């Protein structure tokens, strides 16, 4: 039954492009928006899990709690991205149509990725998503976006080569690419140097895809130069699914020993601290958000590094929260850009009085990022810290906590420069962003607040998903 989530978007792409009817971009946007809403509610249907395993062309598909969280985040973020796309004034309507097609393809890819239980299929789906993202980034064909897309393409193909060779080595050793077979092989030959090389290749490939420091080179460019709906989509969910979610799956395969844990912990904390410091001095709003994104990804990787089930749980919860509040911030960035026509922070000032919804929701989003109660980000950060502390990695827990100060600092600077302060005269006539953008902001903002306030209920539900 859950395979519908992969097949429907593919079918929709076909339908839109058969030219049976005259389809303009509005209908396409509507269809994509409806599909993401459908996904949001469909996964709540009670017999969603009950279909169990599906053996399709000998690929194993399976849905568990982790997949469920991913499906939910994917639906939310793509809905926000579609809203932003609809309101965008800089993208030509023909391109909007292409955009919808690409988003639907990427959705099929991501939904597939979270279901598969086989390392080769993981590779295939990651490549589907990557191929759509190259185009999505370069969609408006400005010099900067082409450059960013090219950079992503080059760096990403390095990751591709590494992952493919890792898959090849593992296939050679295990005789199959199925998770269970590979895991059995790891139990026997885990210490073999060739297998260690394969693991390293796979992890580094995923770190590149997820933009973990020091493999993040492509990420700030890709997020800041791409058109607004793309940056929402990319930052909110695409890199999280391809890079970070897949890391959790490797847990199930690899023999998770202390040296691997240390890799996660070290690279995670590196990302947190360096990216947070990097974000402080950015003048481009979207670039600042990109660095903040790297920093938050660091938290997720750090949580996985604790090596306990609580850590995985905390990391996934943070991933969900992050995709909500980071896409909210990117939605707000596009709201600002649509009104002020710039991303440069020093050109904006005092916009709170002219754009109250954007201002308020961005305060809430960044407070959630910085882990201030009662918002959702507080709980996930707390869980991460608890997981690290009680698994004996206290120094990393302390580091994760103290780094929140940096997060708070750059967001306070951002809020002060953009929204507070004196309103510049040329902005006197500015109006609040268009309706669908506001809709997306308020929707994401409501999720952040409600998740924070009703955390016990969420926790109960997550405990059910993870069958604690």
């Amino acid at each position, binding site marked *: 039954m859950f395979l519908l989530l992969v097949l429907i978007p593919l079918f929709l792409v076909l339908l839109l492009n058969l030219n049976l009817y005259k389809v303009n971009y509005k209908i396409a946007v509507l269809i994509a928006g409806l599909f993401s809403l459908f996904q949001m509610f469909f996964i709540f249907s009670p017999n969603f899990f009950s279909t169990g395993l599906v053996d399709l062309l000998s690929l194993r598909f399976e849905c568990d709690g982790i997949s469920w969280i991913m499906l939910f985040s994917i639906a939310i973020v793509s809905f926000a991205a579609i809203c932003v796309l609809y309101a965008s004034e800089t993208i030509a309507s023909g391109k909007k149509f292409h955009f919808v097609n690409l988003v639907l393809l990427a959705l099929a890819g991501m939904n597939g990725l979270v279901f598969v239980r086989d390392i080769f299929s993981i590779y295939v789906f990651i490549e589907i998503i990557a191929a759509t993202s190259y185009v999505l980034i370069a969609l408006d064909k400005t010099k900067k976006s082409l450059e960013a897309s090219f950079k992503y393409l080059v760096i990403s193909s390095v990751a591709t080569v590494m992952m493919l060779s890792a898959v090849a080595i593992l296939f050679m050793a295990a005789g199959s690419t199925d998770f269970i077979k590979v895991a059995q092989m790891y139990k026997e030959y885990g210490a073999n140097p060739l297998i260690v090389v394969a693991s390293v290749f796979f992890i580094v490939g995923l770190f590149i895809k997820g933009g973990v420091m020091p493999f993040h080179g492509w990420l700030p460019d890709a997020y800041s130069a791409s058109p607004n709906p793309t940056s929402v989509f990319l930052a909110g969910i695409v890199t999280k699914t391809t890079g970070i979610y897949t890391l959790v799956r490797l847990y199930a395969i690899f023999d998770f020993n202390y040296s691997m844990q240390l890799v996660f912990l070290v690279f995670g904390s590196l990302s947190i601290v360096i990216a947070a410091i990097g974000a402080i001095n950015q003048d481009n709003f979207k670039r600042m958000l990109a660095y903040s994104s790297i920093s938050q990804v660091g938290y997720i990787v750090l949580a996985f590094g604790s090596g306990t089930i*609580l850590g995985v749980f905390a990391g996934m919860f943070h991933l969900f929260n992050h995709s909500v509040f980071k896409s909210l911030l990117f939605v707000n960035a596009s709201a600002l850009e649509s009104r002020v026509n710039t991303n440069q922070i020093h050109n904006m000032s*005092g916009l*709170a*009085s002219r754009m109250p919804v954007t201002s308020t929701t961005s305060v809430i989003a960044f*407070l959630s990022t*910085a882990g*201030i*109660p*009662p918002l959702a980000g*507080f709980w996930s950060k*707390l*869980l991460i*810290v*608890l997981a690290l*502390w*009680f698994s004996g990695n*206290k120094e990393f*827990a*302390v580091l994760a*906590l*103290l780094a*929140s*100060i940096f997060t*708070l*600092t750059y967001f*306070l*600077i951002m809020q*002060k420069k953009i929204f*507070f*302060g*004196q309103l510049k005269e040329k902005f006197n006539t500015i109006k609040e962003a268009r309706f669908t953008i506001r809709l997306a902001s308020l929707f994401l903002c409501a999720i952040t607040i409600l998740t924070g306030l009703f955390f*016990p209920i969420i*926790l*109960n539900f997550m*405990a059910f998903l993870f069958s*604690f």
Partner: protein
Amino acid sequence: MSYDIMLLLVVAIPVLFSALIPLFGKVSVFIRNFFALVLMLIPFLLLIIIFQAVQAGIPVDFVYEFPILEINFILQADIFSVFVAMASVLVSIVVLIYSFEYIKSYDNQNEYFFIVLLFVGSMMGIVFSANLIFIYFFWEMTALASWRLIGYFREKEYVRRANKTFIMTAAGALCMLIGFLMIAEQAGSFDLDVISAANLQGSAVNLAIILIILGIFSKSATFPLHSWLADAGIAPSPVTALLHAAVLVKIGVYVYARLFNFTIVPSEEIRIVLFSIVSVSAFLSGAVAFVEKDIKRVIAFSTISQIAFIFLGFISGGKFAFVGAMLFILMHGLAKAGLFLSAGIIEHKIHTKQLDMMGGLFRYMPITAFAFAGCALSVMGIPPFAGFFSKFLVIFGTVYDQNIIAALIFIICAGLTVLYTVRLFWKVFLGSQKKYPNIEKENWNSPMVLSVVSLAFLSLILTFSFGYLFYIANLAAQTIKGQGF
């Protein structure tokens, strides 16, 4: 309705329903103000009922256990917590009534009342939480609220100072959280009851205590982490009154007492260090208050100095010192709120905060002057004002606990208090007559003047119920850990 649910409502009503204030504000100003006042009065009435139950020895606690984790949402009431909660809600009500008139002419009023209510609600959360994680939870919520309140005016400089406050207190709070984690690791739980029963000791616990105290000092603006408090004076006067008198700095003091008088006993070395820190804090800020030229900064430094007195009482920890410190929270709250609110009236009238521009204001605002004098006398600790008894008890208790040197220093600080307060009163109300273009005559039935007068009146009248207050505080003191009364 059971007492447990009432306790939950005391926290939940202001925290959750405050979000409705902006909606009411869109309808009408009067309905909004009325609603805000109701949101403040209901918890106060509930607190009175709970107080009677607690006094009668009925245990009042609300428990919600979390699945999976050790973080349980526990609210617990005892005499000490209900007393502190009532003291701050009482002051907050007066401040709220004052704000109705004060804030009338500014932007973002809806946000103001929303945040004030959220602020008081989070304070209730801290006071009643019996779990370290939730103490931190509400603690950060107050930081959030004070950030928006201090940065109420959106000019660049104001926002910068608000950001400074936020970052300083949040950094302190993170240190505190690390301390909490260390404590929880030793005791095996975040619940205060379990920690209290575990009788923690050792070097790891000492380190944890130091980290927690860093957080507390950053919140209650004790030297050397005090610098944000004077800067916060740029906020509207009712906000500074809330921060200094009713809520923010009292949170630090309260959590100190809750953790280190009732739950964990700090070692003798730590207490000596703390004695020296608060002595330095009291003395330096008293001295600075003597030379400051801005009326609100003088009162702000006076707060830092007086907070040190409360700390002295709790650190000394004996029966009399504790009783004195506990009553000091109420007395200082009333009197200091009165001083700040008077400063707000003066600022509204002559549009400056500089002492050099003031003088001879007694002629124009005699009622405010009398109220100011009353509150000032209470802060100084001059009988028959209620401030005398609490200050006397703190110092007497310190001597009683054999901490003679600390007591001597604080007697000098009490002298300093008298000096700078008298100077302040002289400079503002007496002194050489200055010219004030188009100053309005002060009005008896203005809510602003009435609130100030009522605070001064309360500071005086509470002297006569001192026996009862002492009895209450004594009941609370009997539950202190490790003293064995």
